[in-house]
């Protein structure tokens, strides 16, 4: 079984994330980046399938990313966790690509890997947080997709998923090949072991350009984006109001505040 896990390199959410003022794209150089934490769950789920070992033919896990130079760090982290090899789609023309172009390029890359049984992704990136790329990928690759999966069972020919929806929890089945995006409820991602970190150094990572994928550079990047950011404004920090220390009447004082604001 061949599994591709899509991983994204994102600016650290606990740092001061910002935009590049010249073109309103996410600033990916001024802030330290890391593997999107929500993709760790997808990597872990792939490794659990390896560990379960019920595919007699063995399970191969390929970590794939698209992004600028530093994005290979996301692949590296996945390799340290236990993925077998990596693919980094790297091309200057990709700068500023929207979700559609991203999905189109990733679809071409998955196609180039060939004979993929399962594509695993996180539920959203922690920077753009749109949650649309996996479903778009399903359209481009013409594969079934199950999103927001909180529990996954994989057999040699199908997946059974618990999808945690807004109003109901659904059990969904699809034949392989398929695309599954997983939530942060699905598992507890492992930390890379020392052995894993050492082993990762020897694992192969291929770098592919748009030409390697047969994707026209004019169809991607900021100029081809079908949605345009007009303006970016930093939200004023919320100012701190009154904070009182409870001296036995804290609850009453809180209720008084609520009443003054007409919530009671």
């Amino acid at each position: 079984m061949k599994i591709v896990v899509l991983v994204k390199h994102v600016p650290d959410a606990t740092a001061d994330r910002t935009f590049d003022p010249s073109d309103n794209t996410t600033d990916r150089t001024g802030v330290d980046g890391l593997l999107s934490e929500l993709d760790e769950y997808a990597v872990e789920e792939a490794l659990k399938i390896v560990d379960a070992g019920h595919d007699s033919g063995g399970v191969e896990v390929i970590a794939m990313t698209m992004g600028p130079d530093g994005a290979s760090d996301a692949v590296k982290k996945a390799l340290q966790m236990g993925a077998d090899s990596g693919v980094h789609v790297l091309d200057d023309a990709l700068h500023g690509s929207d979700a559609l172009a991203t999905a189109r390029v990733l679809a071409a890359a998955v196609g180039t890997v060939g004979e993929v049984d399962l594509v695993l992704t996180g539920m959203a990136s922690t920077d753009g947080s749109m949650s649309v790329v996996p479903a778009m990928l399903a359209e481009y690759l013409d594969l079934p997709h199950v999103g927001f999966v909180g529990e996954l069972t994989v057999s040699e020919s199908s997946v059974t998923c618990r999808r945690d929806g807004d109003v109901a929890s659904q059990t969904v089945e699809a034949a392989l090949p398929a695309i599954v995006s997983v939530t942060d409820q699905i598992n507890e991602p492992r930390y890379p072991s020392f052995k894993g970190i050492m082993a990762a150094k020897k694992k192969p990572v291929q770098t592919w350009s748009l030409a390697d994928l047969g994707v026209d550079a004019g169809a991607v990047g900021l100029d081809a984006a079908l949605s345009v950011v007009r303006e970016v404004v930093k939200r004023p920090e919320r100012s701190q109001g009154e904070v009182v220390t409870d001296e036995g009447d804290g609850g009453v004082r809180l209720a008084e505040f609520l009443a003054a604001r007409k919530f009671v």
Partner: protein
Amino acid sequence: MGEILVLVDHVDGVVRKTTTELLTIARRAGDPVAVFLGSGYDDAARQVLASYGATKVYVADAPELEEFLVAPKAEALAQAATACGAVAVLVTASAEGKEIAARLAVKLGSGVITDATDVAADLTTTQSVFAGGYTVAAQVPSGVAVIAVKPNAATPEPSPSSPAEEKLAVTISDSARRARIVARAPRAATGRPELTEAAIVVSGGRGTGGDFGPVEELADALGGAVGASRAAVDSGWYPHAYQVGQTGKTVSPQLYLAAGISGAIQHRAGMQTSKTIVAVNKDPEAPIFAMADFGVVGDLHTILPQVTAEVRKRKA
């Protein structure tokens, strides 16, 4: 001005409040055309769509819409968009809504914007990004704009109409019949307002120590919904459906009360746009206080019951 398609968000035919918000927004930009997919379309549903100004209602009912995940709905919606030459399509920014929007964008070759907190008459959207740190104005400059709109993006304003009704005969491809729903377990009803729609939310975190009783009682006294931090959800104290934050729900109520929640960036991402924020935490250094309009430093186990009693007294 053109036709703005609104995908009706409904549970077994019961139209959700978010749909009335979408219709209100659509009226700013053009003529709202409602698309009702699946079974359950009845007088009550018709009434809601007419009260909020739908000029036309497309009804498409095919078994595939309920037997398979998302893909058939995206196909049906694409067919509706083509049938009326829509200039924009609005869907609710729920898990399913965003996946429908994603597929629709590919089918129509259109740009997509998700999680809009407002949409102007020229279809310029407002989004809150980076955990609420920035506000972004965006637009789909050409083609059919596909926009997933957050709950509470607008106050629903009635505008009675008498919409024409049209049955839409949709064709569902084999491709769209591959993720089969084999079982469905509806979420248990709580009798409380829907978390994303509630005017008041009372949330509990790790500081509750696992006892959500005081949180629920205060929520009930105030007529609000209950939320939880991921730490509380991960500990198994409260169901994930009630998690507020980056990987849970985004709420934007009039009042958000955080009890025993530190205020991590991922939690703030889900509640930062609340109008009034109140915090109860025993640690005076907790980051939640920096964004609170009112805070009490102390033990929530004594403070919350006191607030509840006082609220009940004042309401009596």
